[in-house]
């Protein structure tokens, strides 16, 4: 067909990238900065969910760039399961202090101690985060809550909007989402409702790592290969520790591992790795045949709709 031939010729000169084309990282960065600035312009009390995981670290970095040389007009919120990696908690506190940001902490342990939440038989605390998160959002009257969720992570997340409306119980109704057209985000909400905002919606795991490398962003050291005492449960290497592992029949061994995701110790698995630099991590991910959640998250294997069910109830 002649039209095809014409097009191909035109594209040949430039390889599709003219002088005004942005690299994919620049395009994603610009989109995320636009989202942060929209929220700053339209909401009263936004907060960034900050766990010390790589996605929330990239979010914070983007927010810093979006408002420089002024300070970020948001505070930080962490839902601490009580089973978080100490290296990550240390990173969290240091980062909040460095940027002079207010850090709110909602503590799952506190809810368990008060008898409001009960420890699950399997020891997993991930699903327990929803109530402390929701109550903190309500009590602090946060109206926009930035999350680091990406659509490539999981199939229920693939259906998530950039601006995702939540009712007073933080519930997500996937059938009643607002269509998002162009880059015109609709943040209207009633008192008591809030909007979850996902600036990294269009990023992949590889984009996040490439961006970390390009920007020279510091990460908690558990993202890089190190020796650690681990044991196997449900096909994953879990960190041995006070949180409840290993149990009878599970044996501890020392392995060279790193974490691909960082969450609650009870359900975040490590992967065998000798990647100690960012470039080595990127090469490893590019060659990996497993998704990051498939490789490292026990809670998503509970059922086909595990993530959707948690999200409907108000999870991140």
């Amino acid at each position, binding site marked *: 067909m002649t039209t095809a031939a014409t097009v191909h010729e*035109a594209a040949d000169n430039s390889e599709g990238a003219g002088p005004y084309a942005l690299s994919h990282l620049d395009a994603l960065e610009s989109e995320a900065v636009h989202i942060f600035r929209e929220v700053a312009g339209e909401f009263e009390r936004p907060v960034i969910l900050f766990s010390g995981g790589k996605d929330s670290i990239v979010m914070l970095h983007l927010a810093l760039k979006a408002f420089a040389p002024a300070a970020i007009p948001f505070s930080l919120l962490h839902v601490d399961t009580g089973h978080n990696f100490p290296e990550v908690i240390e990173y969290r506190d240091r980062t909040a202090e460095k940027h002079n940001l207010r850090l709110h902490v909602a503590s799952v342990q506190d809810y368990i101690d008060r008898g409001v939440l009960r420890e699950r038989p399997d020891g997993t605390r991930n699903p327990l985060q929803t109530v402390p998160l929701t109550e903190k959002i309500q009590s602090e009257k946060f109206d926009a809550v930035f999350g680091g969720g990406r659509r490539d992570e999981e199939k229920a997340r693939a259906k998530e909007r950039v601006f995702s409306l939540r009712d007073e119980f933080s519930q997500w109704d996937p059938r009643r989402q607002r269509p998002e057209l162009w880059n015109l985000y609709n943040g209207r909400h009633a008192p008591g409702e809030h909007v979850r905002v996902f600036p990294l919606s269009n990023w992949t795991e590889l984009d996040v790592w490439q961006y970390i490398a390009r920007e020279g962003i510091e990460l908690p050291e558990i993202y890089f290969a190190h020796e650690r005492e681990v044991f196997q449960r449900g096909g994953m290497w879990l960190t041995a520790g006070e949180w409840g592992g290993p149990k009878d029949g599970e044996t501890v061994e020392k392995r060279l591992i790193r974490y691909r995701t960082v969450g609650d110790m009870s359900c975040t698995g490590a992967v065998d790795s000798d990647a100690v630099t960012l470039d080595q991590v990127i090469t490893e991910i590019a060659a990996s045949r497993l998704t990051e959640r498939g490789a490292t998250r026990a809670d998503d294997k509970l059922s086909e709709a595990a993530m959707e069910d948690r999200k409907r109830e108000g999870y991140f």
Partner: protein
Amino acid sequence: MSTTTPEELSATTLLRFATAGSVDDGKSTLVGRLLHDSKSILTDQLEAVERASVSRGQEAPDLALLTDGLRAEREQGITIDVAYRYFATPRRRFILADTPGHVQYTRNMVTGASTAELTVILVDARNGVVEQTRRHAAIAALLRVPHVVLAVNKMDLVDYQESVFAAIAQEFTAYALELGVPEITAIPISALAGDNVVDPSANMDWYGGPTFLEHLETVPVSHDLSHCHARLPVQYVIRPQTAEHPDYRGYAGQIAAGSFHVGEAVTVLPSGRTSRISGIDLLGKPVDVAWTTQSVTLLLEDDIDISRGDLIVPSKDAPATTQDVDATVCHVADQPLTVGHRVLLKHGTRTVKAIVKDIPSRLTLDDLSLHPHPGQLVANDIGRVTIRTAEPLPLDSYADSRRTGSFILIDPADGTTLTAGMVGESFASPDPVKDEADDDGWDF
């Protein structure tokens, strides 16, 4: 895959594209093959799909299960919502908005097309151009998607005959050109057999063009900006008020169209105040020139009153401001849009009160026939509207600028996104289609 270095991986551009078509056209197969052949489906995802397919009694893995992420979608075996998929080749990163063919069809395709640089329209080589194909072409034309690909699929079922492909390509191209689609590329493929999807087909040596993936990898993603109006909607005013930056006052926004340079005379709308650009801050780096779609902070020579919602434009190329908007809209909400409806209109970074003055016509996408004065628009309707806004807006026509010629209408009572709007004429050519029954001119 493992031979790709980190440097190569980060030096790519990004293409946002959308696919349209029903399951019967082989859309899932095509998307599945793209993802599979670009090694974007990982082992655990494939295993999950295989498990789910087996438990449903299906023989082959159903790749639609990869993105039919919602319980309701899997239970009903349909895609409800736009699914976004991400994949990469060494040459480019892709964001695919995969729009379902059944439910809320128009709404979803309009949503997917609104941010797409390219739309893929699939036809079955045995059936050729059908009503649905024309509907897809009309939406791509309305949304001014710069590149349209006609993928003539199932070529294996017509013995890979050039004449079959040529006839379909010709018919479609003629129709789409009439609608004002600026560029059409027709490619003969078999998604099932893999012909011309990633690798050139051994069965169609009469075809000299690129494979489907090659075309996606090389289609231009940037434009000649010298012909574009430069536009910066102000999102936020950055004022550190610190000892280090006592007087810094920057206007932050994402350049919606065109380019700006230091020294340029600019006008702020709707106030009409003027100044000159004294500096451009590109996320911490001072630059002399910046262009769409970079997020920047502009510094101006004069301390003038500018706030969120204003539009900064070159003084020599400022749009007129108006309170009367004529537009084509796609209604996306379940509650109808009626004449007299009081709404909020969001354009760029400004949201103003508005009222729907008139709905002169509704358009049927199948045959592009017009229905005058429908009284209301319901979900998935496309029509013309006249809107009066409470404040003047600096509007471009959508044909000139997709970002500053578009708007959404919001229900002030419950915040629902009601309608997607495009300012100005619906289609690019002034007289795009002759309606045989009604030949007294086409002014849609």
